[in-house]
């Protein structure tokens, strides 16, 4: 069986606007969008640019819009779509070429929230952490940085300075970690105008998250923390 993939292409050296190009690809029951892209690159058109690596939904490289919805190419199967499928680069990011988005802004946002354990204590033994304490943040530690949630978030689309779902989730992940003491250092960024309050709980980010992290919940838990932080600061001299 064959399906038609309509791919939005953009070559910054030649084009001023993206344009779409169609390819016929053979499909069976197990063909993923990534398989189809690899088929095109290997057999039909070696100039097609897209990122990929692990093929097993853990490296977060092959994010792409499939019929307008952000998806991981390797975990989206053409059997679930009609005869024509539209592939576009991730929304809300600039496009470097074809299906390659410029995700540097996302990486900067990650860095802004200090996504590492802050705890000055030195020891040669591990911390103790109960399975319950682990469970508090474990889900939020599963982010693969694929960027789908940014493509789902209209607030990020309207304001690229907004830290966005993944970065705020990562902040929440460390804030919830029983081993961490860095919350006070992270809160100013979270309280700021591009922090948690930029979120209006559209919730689409949680819907598209391939790892079911529920970033919208994490961000809004951040709002509770931010409000608490504000109230406490009022009573501090």
């Amino acid at each position, binding site marked *: 069986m064959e399906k038609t993939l309509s791919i939005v292409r953009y070559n910054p050296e030649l084009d001023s606007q993206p344009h779409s190009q169609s390819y016929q690809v053979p499909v069976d029951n197990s063909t993923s969008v990534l398989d189809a892209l690899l088929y095109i690159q290997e057999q039909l058109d070696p100039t097609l640019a897209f990122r990929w690596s692990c093929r097993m939904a853990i490296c977060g490289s092959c994010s792409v819009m499939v019929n*307008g919805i952000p998806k991981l190419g390797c975990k989206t199967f053409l059997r679930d779509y009609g005869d024509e499928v539209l592939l576009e680069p991730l929304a809300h990011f600039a496009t*470097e070429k074809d299906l390659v988005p410029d995700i540097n802004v996302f990486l900067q946002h990650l860095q802004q929230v200090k996504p590492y354990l802050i705890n000055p204590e030195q020891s040669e033994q591990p911390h103790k952490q109960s399975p319950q304490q682990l469970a508090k943040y474990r889900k939020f530690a599963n982010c693969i940085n694929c960027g789908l949630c940014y493509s789902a978030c*209209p607030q990020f*689309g309207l304001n690229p300075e907004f830290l966005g779902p993944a970065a705020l989730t990562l902040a929440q992940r460390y804030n919830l970690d029983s081993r961490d003491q860095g919350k006070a250092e992270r809160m100013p960024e979270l309280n700021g105008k591009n922090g948690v309050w930029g979120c*209006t709980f*559209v*919730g689409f980010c949680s819907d598209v998250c391939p790892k079911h992290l529920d970033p919208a919940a994490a961000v809004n838990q951040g709002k509770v923390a931010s409000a608490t932080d504000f109230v406490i600061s009022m009573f501090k001299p």
Partner: protein
Amino acid sequence: MTEQKVNSSSTPKPYHSELSAFWWLKHRYYLLYMLREATVLPLLFFLGCLMYGLYSLSQSEQHWLGFVAFMQQGWVIALNLLAFVASLFHAKTFFELFPRVMPLAPAALMIAGQWLATLGVATVLFLMLGAG
């Protein structure tokens, strides 16, 4: 960690697409979100009615009767019914979001609890009104 920034004028430019003002028409998920946000409009009308009623109460009986006549008009009833439905819809979305933000108990339990509480408060209010 710092990241390498490269400035060179010959570098081709990435393509930026602007989000149009009608982004929320793009798919169902955004539309539902806008609908949730829009529930505030009929509720504003309901609030206006409430304020008008309270104000009338503080004025003369004539004034109050005017208010009652106003409330009895078809379009006012329709708008208030809409506000009622909107508030239920908003409550539903809110009750479903709440357990995700404050995960205090299993989500289904928290959602059921919130509806029960709403029903409880409404019943008590009705009983008080009836008793009055």
